């Protein structure tokens, strides 16, 4: 299968050299078994990047720190929940380019989830009014108890409320199993 790309996956060209970068490899089970690790990771990533802004006004730095942690939390939670349970890895790559931050989370997943996620992205792509999509998803949850148990609004909230550019790549690993890579590009000005 060739790669399929949705959204702003290549918003920042891969050849650009970041001012700071960070990579982590995790297993989904270590996150699902100890869920608090997701929050710890989010706060760590946020602190690692936002310390650059410690010379700015204290409130501005705190705001950047909270904003990064909020965005990374949604990405790492999705990877923890929707990875294949066995032999899957979660690869995190963070690149900080001046005022733009790229948060990338890649995980191996099941064909069923990859298909469902792709359908969700296609539906989002076709709708310009994100508030309307948000309302539609939440109202549907009232009518459907099973759907209510899944959030399904994480990436939508990032785009809608946090002005984050989101891109997703679907590819396959060497064994032909689906891999999902989500990138969030966050502008760290006026967050």
């Amino acid at each position, binding site marked *: 299968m060739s790669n399929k790309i949705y959204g702003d996956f290549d918003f920042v060209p891969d050849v650009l050299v970041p001012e700071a970068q960070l990579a982590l490899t995790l297993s989904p089970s270590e996150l699902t078994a100890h869920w608090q690790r997701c929050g710890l990771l989010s706060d760590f990533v946020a602190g690692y990047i936002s310390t650059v802004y410690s010379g700015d006004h204290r409130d501005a730095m705190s705001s950047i720190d909270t904003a990064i942690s909020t965005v990374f939390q*949604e990405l790492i939670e999705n990877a923890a929940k929707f990875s294949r349970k066995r032999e899957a890895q979660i690869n995190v790559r963070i690149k900080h380019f001046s005022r733009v931050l790229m948060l990338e989370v890649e995980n191996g997943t099941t064909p069923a989830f990859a298909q469902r996620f792709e359908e969700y992205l296609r539906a989002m792509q076709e709708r310009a009014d994100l*508030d309307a999509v948000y309302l539609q998803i939440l*109202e549907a*949850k009232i009518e459907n108890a099973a759907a*209510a148990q899944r959030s399904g609004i994480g990436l939508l909230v990032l785009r809608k*409320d946090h002005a984050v550019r989101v891109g997703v790549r679907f590819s396959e690993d060497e064994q032909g199993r689906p891999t999902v890579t989500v990138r969030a590009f966050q502008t760290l000005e006026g*967050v």
Partner: protein
Amino acid sequence: MEVRETEAVVRFSPETATVYFSGALRLANVKAYDNVAKLLHAAAAQVGEQPLVLDFKELKFLNSSGITALSLFVVGARKAGKPQLKLVGSKATAWQQKSLANFQMLWKEVPLVIE
């Protein structure tokens, strides 16, 4: 009445008819918010005709599962016509300015105060 999670406390004060959220609510899924939802429903039953205030000022984080769980409560109250709700947030916390308005989208008559 209080719910304590690893990183957060949710407390209902009958005296002020207010549910105070503090800390970081980043639970694993919507189901994990059942205790919070139970507290909200119990608080709703106690306030009667008074508005129930949801005070998020001290809540640093709320993940999308939490937004979903709270949205279900807001829509449930809207459909039941009670309790009346009032939302209070803080300018100092980035997500509150951006995302609390989402609850208001679900029930337009709910006042939102950002302090």
